[in-house]
């Protein structure tokens, strides 16, 4: 145990006005880590962002403001509270926070939830425990120093008398926030570090889990939208006569983003969408294609690039070297394709309130989006809706966050919120907007296409003496490429960004996904050019990064790198140190009789500091490897005439169970601060696979996805 002094401005103890009340503890925490700078609404004011509620019936509810999209916050956040509160895990319930400005900016992304909550949620549990200890001592009329909190009870040690937490909520609510409280040391943890079952699993195996698309409200109308096939185009004229003749179709009209059909049910709306005849104003992006973008990236003069990192004198060493190695890598646009298509439900109520039910990674951003629409409509003076809209105040927009059927960054964007609010303002009834999968694939905010130009040189011993990485792409940065972790005397990383000429969005693991591929595959190219074993060379050049070299050593040991067979199976390794975590992956690639290749096994070692729940870490690593393998071997968005060529899972395929290799995950235990787990497992997969191909065929990979059948 170690003592800390709770910041009394940080904790707020609330009791319900009624007798027999619950003890409610509000917690203020900083959420700057994942908050976009332009929307940072931090202030010195008290701003509780997570809540703990002890009800007289004995249940303990942790209210979580992070969106649950599979990555586990509905379980992980309560675990941290329960640990310090000294309660049995099976009494813990979870509720999603409603949207309220006092919660601060709600946004889930950047593998940040645990890192954000680590101190605050444990402190909240510890403060609540201290309050209950004080209340228990009062109830038992004994000195608090003689009491211990254990399994949801306050126990008077000398006499063995005890009183349950739920009998103490009234008294505890009247106690002041304590001057000191105790936090456990890692070796005292009994919940943190355990593979406790996820709280969201029971409802996810019987069809009861409610995702955004499952929102059902009385009298609800169903809408769908067709966007202009060309990026940025607008509807010019619409012939909806055939659509409107379908029974159940209520209306067809244009909004800013496209043409909307409103109907009595989803299928009727989808059917009507198919028979709309729309004349589009395509705008100025009709000549954009994958090829034109690559040409644009290649043609950009180097002088325009921004220097992200520079050390030593790369130019002199490279021009003086007769062993310079060069490479270019192209990685395609990727779509997110979460299984739950984009959707949102909104209701302008008779009392002037707007309610929104959104499967979103950022309820706060959804709120901002809804508010902006409402305000801009007022300013544009649309008479038909003006009266209704004038009744809408800033505090009268509610966003209810549902479960998310996958996020992967897609649901950080709020286009579906903007659209449904524009539609719902025309109706008294609630309206649910559902996109078809085709709209989802063709109107995503894509992981950008990137081109990486690499140059490097080795000395006579094969040691790396120069490294240059130029990252070209759409809204790109150097994260994962600079600072380069390898100990190389002359290094330079440049970024040449042409901006988001097609819709851009964060995609699971964002910039490190494209940069780590280039870094880690080029490392192997250079190692081989200098006749070095890439694994040994990595370990040598990572000696200043003990946590990272350790995960690589363990991975090599587990995958039996030393004893790897000659010929039939090829190995490739890659590493990453981002989001506070260190990951090494080793891919085993088998060559079959017909000169086909098959990924046999992926060994993954992660050091994410203190592990909250090892089974959820394992889930995230398994899922990340499969996500990475989809992008590395199957998925690719291409553009022609300003339109996306792909439209659904048949032509934008993702990995299936039959293509999934054996995956072994090893978690390194230590007492470092917890790191993120949602993203770090994705980036090493593609370069580890490319390195295995390089080992198998002697040929480097120049473009993703890799043709798994032939390399």
């Amino acid at each position, binding site marked *: 145990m170690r003592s800390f002094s709770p910041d009394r401005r940080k904790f707020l103890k609330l009791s319900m006005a009624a007798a027999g009340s619950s003890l409610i503890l509000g917690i203020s925490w900083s959420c700057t880590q994942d908050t976009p700078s332009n929307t940072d609404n931090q202030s010195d004011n008290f701003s509780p962002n997570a809540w703990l509620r002890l009800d007289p019936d004995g249940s303990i509810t942790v209210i979580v403001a992070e969106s649950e999209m599979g990555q586990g916050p509905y379980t992980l956040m309560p675990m941290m509270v329960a640990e310090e509160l000294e309660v049995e895990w099976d009494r813990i319930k979870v509720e999603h926070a409603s949207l309220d400005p006092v919660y601060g900016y709600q946004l889930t992304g950047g593998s940040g939830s645990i890192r954000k909550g680590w101190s605050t949620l444990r402190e909240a549990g510890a403060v609540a425990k201290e309050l209950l200890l004080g209340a228990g001592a009062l109830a038992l009329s004994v000195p608090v120093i003689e009491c211990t909190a254990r399994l949801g009870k306050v126990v008077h040690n000398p006499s063995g008398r005890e009183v349950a937490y739920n009998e103490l909520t009234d008294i505890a609510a009247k106690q002041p926030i304590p001057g000191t409280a105790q936090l456990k040391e890692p070796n005292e943890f009994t919940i943190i570090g355990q593979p406790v079952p996820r709280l969201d699993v029971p409802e996810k195996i019987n069809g009861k889990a409610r995702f955004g698309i499952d929102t059902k409200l009385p009298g609800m109308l169903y809408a769908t939208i067709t966007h202009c096939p060309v990026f940025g185009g607008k509807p010019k004229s619409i012939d909806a006569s055939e659509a409107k003749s379908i029974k159940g179709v209520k209306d067809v009209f244009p909004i800013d983003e496209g043409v909307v059909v409103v109907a009595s049910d989803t299928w009727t709306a989808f059917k009507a969408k198919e028979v709309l005849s729309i004349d589009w104003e395509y705008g100025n992006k009709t000549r954009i294609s994958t090829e034109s973008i690559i040409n644009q990236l290649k043609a950009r003069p180097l002088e325009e690039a921004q220097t992200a990192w520079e050390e030593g004198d790369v130019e002199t060493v490279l021009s003086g070297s007769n062993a310079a190695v060069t490479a270019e890598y192209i990685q395609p646009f990727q779509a997110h394709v979460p*299984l739950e298509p984009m959707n949102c439900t909104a209701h302008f109520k008779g009392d002037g309130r707007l309610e929104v039910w959104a499967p979103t990674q950022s309820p706060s951003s959804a709120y901002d989006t809804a508010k902006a629409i409402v305000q801009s409509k007022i300013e544009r003076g649309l008479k038909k809706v003006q009266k209704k809209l004038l009744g809408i105040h800033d505090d009268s927009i509610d966003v209810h966050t549902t479960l998310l059927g996958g996020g992967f960054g897609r649901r950080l964007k709020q286009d579906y919120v903007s659209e449904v609010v524009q539609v719902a303002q025309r109706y008294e009834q609630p309206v649910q907007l559902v996109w078809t999968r085709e709209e989802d694939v063709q109107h995503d905010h894509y992981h950008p296409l990137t081109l990486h130009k690499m140059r490097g040189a080795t000395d006579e011993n094969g040691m790396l003496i120069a490294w240059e990485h130029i990252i070209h792409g759409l809204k790109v940065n150097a994260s994962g490429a600079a600072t380069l972790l390898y100990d190389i005397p002359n290094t330079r990383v440049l970024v040449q960004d042409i901006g988001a000429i097609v819709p851009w969005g964060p995609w699971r693991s964002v910039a490190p996904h494209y940069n780590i591929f280039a870094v880690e595959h080029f490392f192997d190219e250079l190692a081989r050019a200098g006749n070095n074993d890439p694994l040994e060379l990595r370990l040598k050049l990572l000696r200043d990064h003990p946590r990272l070299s350790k995960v690589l050593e363990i991975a090599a040991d587990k995958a039996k790198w030393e004893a790897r067979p000659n010929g039939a199976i090829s190995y490739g390794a890659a590493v990453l140190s981002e989001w506070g975590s260190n990951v090494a992956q080793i891919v085993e690639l088998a060559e079959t009789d017909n000169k086909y290749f098959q990924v046999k096994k992926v060994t993954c070692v992660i050091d994410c500091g203190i592990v909250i729940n090892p089974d959820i870490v394992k889930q995230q690593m398994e899922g990340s490897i499969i996500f990475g393998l989809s992008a590395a071997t199957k998925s690719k968005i291409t553009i022609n005439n300003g339109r996306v060529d792909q439209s659904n899972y048949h032509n934008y395929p993702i990995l299936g169970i039959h293509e999934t290799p054996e995956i072994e995950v090893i978690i390194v235990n230590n007492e470092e601060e917890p790191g993120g787990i949602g993203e770090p497992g994705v980036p090493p997969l593609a370069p580890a696979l490319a390195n295995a191909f390089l080992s198998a065929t002697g040929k480097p990979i120049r473009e993703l996805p890799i043709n798994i059948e032939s390399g």
Partner: protein
Amino acid sequence: MQISVNGKIHNVDAGEETPLLWVLRDHLGLTGTKYGCGIGACGSCTVLLEDEPVRACLTLLGEVENKKITTIEGISPESNHPVQQAWEELQVPQCGYCQSGQIISAVALLSETDEPTDEDIDEMMSGILCRCGTYPRIREAIKLAARKISEQRINQ
């Protein structure tokens, strides 16, 4: 039209060409069956039609009149089908959206195969997509469920 879902008869006011998926979701409020692609490419909408797995997005209302339909809501009274037990024990779901289709397909597989091999699993499950990547656990959970079912038989 009359259809039988999870042992209950429902009257549905929808055209014969309406996909069963939308009848279940929008007309009957059985939202456990999910829309993922609409073209039979993702498997999230898989239901049992006379105990055979079908994609509800491609199955028309007119084809299912008076046939027995089972959805995720109807496979067990208390979420205690051996497949559901195995899913919970091995903590399969992440986001959970595709899991109805996965579980229904696993139930179908185990109703025709006592001890499914990896190839059997691939054949039945390869069309049921999961973006979170729960496949390794799905494979293990199917094998665990198979053992549970055979234990139940022995105990009976």
